[in-house]
């Protein structure tokens, strides 16, 4: 059955493929002004220094602005376009991440680390194209829509106490930006499946086939991203063009096929990087491209550090070879072996900060098919040790203090040894300054004292005004909004280490506000440290500029180097959750004690006073009883007589009683009447 079906399926695919190609050609001829919807898929593989492999999937779908599309799309996911139309999203990024990007080992300077490494959990930011006062409403609706779309609890970002509106520290600075994170959101396949559904071929064909759930969730780091930009719709009636970038970054450890773990003990083989292939890390192979994709490419990137190291090794080995190394024959080095011949080799252009430039091996997936799948593999022959280029300062964040009353957050920036090289250009200048932007959101129950901000440079306390050039805070409002802090630091270039500390008090919550596992603690979202002076961009000059790869053009974007700090876990004091009734009753008892005993003291009379009052009462009765008795006498038609003491008292008591009863009855009747 399956044997029969498969050729049919392939035939069908082929037919649709041809049809589509014809159609695209036809379309482009027919309406030259209007571009078509496009889909590109790319995969970038990169060996990392710590015996792991980075795989970065990048899928780009774009829908050009058009009137004809209307509500219909050929390739572009309808759900996303509806989202954009409905909430007028200008730009949006949603990321689901599990694990933490290791900035020290995996690098912090290249575009992948700086714009694809995300904080754990969910991060969402969006820029809206609506008037200022509608932004919050749009945000709330968007969170609900996304939470439905991705099966995640993004709707928790709806409450004002979870999101903030950074003014200038977050890169796409705009007044209509909203930013929120959910550090504790667990990410799993239920989030990946809807994400894959947005792809035209899902995970049935093309590169997405590699996304085998058990293997990608086994990795050290897993981050799926969805980034969309809508190019503003000029006139009414035309839908805005949308570019949707879906990226999935995983850091995986290759499984050694023949039990090399045992041989790891050998000193000689210790430094040999593990060899891997697509089938060994994903358990799948690429069996052709997604027919709907315009281009489908696999890249293998060798890091700048790695290339430099390889060059050095090569020079040592072949000192006799006088001629310089050109990139063309580079892949045939004896230090490693590729299982497939690359179609093209691209060398990075003018890497400003480093001596060497990284190298891309390009593989066209079109050439591979079901019968001969692409199983790209890398086999190391000699041990190589290299370091990834890291950000100018390595940032980390930690909590200080003990106990559940107060504490302090410290952000420490340590210079990385690699910085020396690329700071050389500036270092000759005495007034050289390193600009660092810090963006930090703290939930309201961490009550930050902004006045306690302290700056230490090389362990020496410095005046805050000397270091912080610009600061903007929006203090937290209890149960309403989180605290937000944006700072621009100017550090001297030669700084070895810098630290910021800020004190906080831990808030006390109402018992309903504690999450189910309250004693686990509360998360403070990651701070964002960015270095606006440094741009994480790589320029790859491709000969065929016609089919420019979206991934490589993404790499060329000039974005500042950014890194996320750790998520902090703050334990908060908990009240006794089982106590509400006891507390209510005990407190009310104390209040009753106060009220009752004080009133009792005030109205208590000792025996002498009682007698005195009684005397007084017998002498002259109050006005009201007198009037009442007169009235009753008149009603009875009897002449009124001044009351005698013994019988009159009983009479008055009864009349008082009657009066009270009437009063209560009247109250009850009026109450009944009023409420009915």
């Amino acid at each position, binding site marked *: 059955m399956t044997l029969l079906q498969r050729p049919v399926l392939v035939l069908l695919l082929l037919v649709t493929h041809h049809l589509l190609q014809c159609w695209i050609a036809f379309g482009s001829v027919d309406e030259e002004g209007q571009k078509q919807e496009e889909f590109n898929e790319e995969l970038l593989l990169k060996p990392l220094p710590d015996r792991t492999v980075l795989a970065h999937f990048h899928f780009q779908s774009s829908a050009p602005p058009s009137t004809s599309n209307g509500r219909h799309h050929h390739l572009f996911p309808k759900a996303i376009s509806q989202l954009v139309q409905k909430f007028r999203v200008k730009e949006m990024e949603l990321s689901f991440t599990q694990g933490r990007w290791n900035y020290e080992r995996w690098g912090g300077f290249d575009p992948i680390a700086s714009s694809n490494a995300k904080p754990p959990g969910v991060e969402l930011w969006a820029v809206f194209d609506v008037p200022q006062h509608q932004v919050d409403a749009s945000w709330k609706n968007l969170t609900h829509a996304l939470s439905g779309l991705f099966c995640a609890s993004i709707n928790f970002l709806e409450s004002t106490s979870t999101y903030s509106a950074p003014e200038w520290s977050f890169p796409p600075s705009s007044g209509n930006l909203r930013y929120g994170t959910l550090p504790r959101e667990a990410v799993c396949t239920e989030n990946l499946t809807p994400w894959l559904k947005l792809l035209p071929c899902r995970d049935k064909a093309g590169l997405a086939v590699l996304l085998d759930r058990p293997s990608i969730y086994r990795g050290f780091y897993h981050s799926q991203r969805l980034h969309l930009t809508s190019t503003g719709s000029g006139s009414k009636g035309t839908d805005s063009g949308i570019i949707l970038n879906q990226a999935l970054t995983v850091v995986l450890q290759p499984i050694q096929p023949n039990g090399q773990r045992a041989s790891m003990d050998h000193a000689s083989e210790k430094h040999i990087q593990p060899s891997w292939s697509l089938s060994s890390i994903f358990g799948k192979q690429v069996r052709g491209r997604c027919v709907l994709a315009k281009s489908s490419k696999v890249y293998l990137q060798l890091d700048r550090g790695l290339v430099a190291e390889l060059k050095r090794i090569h020079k040592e080995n072949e000192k006799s070879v006088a001629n310089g190394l050109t990139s063309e024959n580079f892949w045939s080095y004896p230090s490693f072996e590729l299982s497939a011949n690359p179609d093209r080799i691209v060398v990075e252009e003018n890497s400003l900060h480093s001596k060497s430039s990284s190298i891309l091996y390009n593989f066209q997936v079109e050439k591979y098919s079901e019968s001969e799948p692409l199983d790209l593999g890398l086999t190391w022959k000699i041990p190589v040790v290299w370091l990834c280029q890291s950000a100018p300062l390595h940032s980390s964040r930690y909590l200080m203090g003990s106990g559940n009353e107060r504490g302090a957050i410290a952000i420490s920036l340590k210079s990385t040894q690699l910085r020396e090289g690329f700071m050389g250009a500036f270092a000759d200048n005495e007034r050289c300054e390193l600009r660092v932007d810090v963006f930090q959101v703290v939930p309201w129950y961490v009550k930050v004292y902004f006045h306690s901000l302290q700056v230490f440079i090389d362990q020496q306390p410095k005046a805050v005004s000397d270091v912080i050039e610009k600061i903007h805070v929006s203090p937290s409002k209890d149960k309403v909004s989180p605290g937000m802090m944006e700072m621009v630091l100017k550090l001297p270039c030669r700084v070895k280490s810098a630290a910021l500390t800020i004190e906080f008090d831990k808030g006390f919550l109402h018992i*309903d506000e504690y999450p189910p596992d309250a004693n686990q603690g509360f998360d403070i979202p990651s701070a964002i440290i960015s270095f606006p002076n440094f741009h994480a961009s790589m320029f790859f000059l491709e000969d065929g500029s016609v089919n420019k790869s979206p991934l490589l053009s993404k790499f060329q974007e000039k974005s500042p180097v950014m890194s996320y700090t750790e998520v902090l876990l703050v334990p908060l004091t908990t009240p006794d959750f089982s106590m509400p009734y006891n507390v209510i009753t005990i407190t009310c008892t104390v209040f009753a004690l*106060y009220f009752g005993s*004080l009133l009792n003291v005030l109205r208590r009379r000792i025996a002498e006073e009682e007698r005195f009052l009684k005397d007084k009462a017998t002498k002259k009765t109050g006005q009201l009883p007198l009037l009442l008795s007169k009235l009753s006498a008149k009603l009875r038609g009897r002449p009124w007589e001044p009351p005698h003491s013994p019988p009159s008292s009983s009479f008055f008591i009864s009349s008082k009683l009657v009066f009270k009863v009437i009063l209560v009855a009247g109250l009850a009747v009026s109450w009944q009447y009023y409420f009915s």
Partner: protein
Amino acid sequence: MQKMGKQKNKTASFSFWNWVIASIIFRLILIYFPKNLNLASRPEVSTPLTSFRRLAEGYWLKQLSMSPYAGSMYHGSPLLLSLLGPLTVKRIEGQPNHLLYSLVSVIADVVSAILIRATGKNLRLAYLRSLESLDIVQQTKASGEFFKILSPGDAAALIYLWNPFTIVACVGLSTSPIENMAVILCLYGACSRLVPLAAFGWVIATHLSLYPAILIIPVIFLLGCGPDAPPRKLFLQKNNKEEVLSKSKLRLGFSWRPITHFAFWALLWSAYVLVLCGISLKQFGGLWEMFKSTYGFILTVEDLSPNIGVLWYFFAEVFDFFRNFFLIVFHVNILFMIMPLAIRLHHRPCFLAFVYIAIFSMLKSYPSVGDSALYLGLLGWFVNELADIQFSFFLFCGYVGVSLLSPVMHTLWIWRGTGNANFYFATAMVYACLQIILVVEGVSAMLNHDRKLRNLATSKPQDAKS
């Protein structure tokens, strides 16, 4: 004989000043301890309203040209911010960080003590005069020897100065010494018939912490019919019996003139304060913002951090549905007692003020030991009247025990993590009960004292006859 008395007085006052200076030195020593012995962040000392760190935060925000009420850190008055704010950042080299600010609190404490002393002297004179007019000086002399030696003013001032609660509040940099000073200023002004001063104190105290607003009742009584005296009925009875007693000696009527004065001055001062606040908050949302985050914050009990009161835990635990109901109930509890107490104790306005202060420092949303320090100090005014208060030893031990146990329970719960919130809440509960007993027993002792005076006054002629 008179010379001897004067001499005695002189030595007494001399030793009084010695004690005052000793208390100042004691405070300074504590201030020079590193980090203020961490008193500034103790929950007993600094509530969200009186915390020094919050004041500094408000000032910092204001310096950054943001509203000090942005965020929910600062809930005090904007005037306090302008006056004390600069002191939170000013530092003198080689001296403790907040020396200037601490000096202000020490001065506030000393001024309060001096005012308490002056008021106490006033009260003593009034007391003696009333005894004289009732002709029962001889009888009381036999029983009340204590106040011959130590006048109530000195006693109250020294209790106030040497009360550990006052010292802790002063060294802990809370703003309660200043709030207390405003309250005392108000009472002093009313006792010595300085109407503008009384109005000023009342307006400032109300502005700073809202609850002293109810002190308007004792102040009106003070201005209307003078300081504490035995019930007026007694004089009337006496006067009926002996017409000879000149009426000029005691003003028995209720005079409305000073009260209209007071109303006028109170209006003037409050307008002045509001204008000042308005100016200082002009660019930050104005007065409405201020009322919302000072009075609104007090009335809605938004901050649930632990303090020595009982409301924080109650509102942390109570179901949201009932929150508003209980807010109303608890605040009305303070108001409910105003009328009965005013009716029963209208002849003793200072004592009435003391009872009111004790009640609201017990039931207020964010009580601190600074509030307790105030009423404990004022308790000294009534050493003669409250000489035979019941359970005084028990109360004393209770206060000592709670003030030792409460920090222990707090440490167990917050720092060690071995206790739980109920431990601390239990000490808060006990503390509230102690205060209730103190108030109840104080009121009952005062009423008993009045009864005793009446007995003395009425029984004496009969004795003479028989």
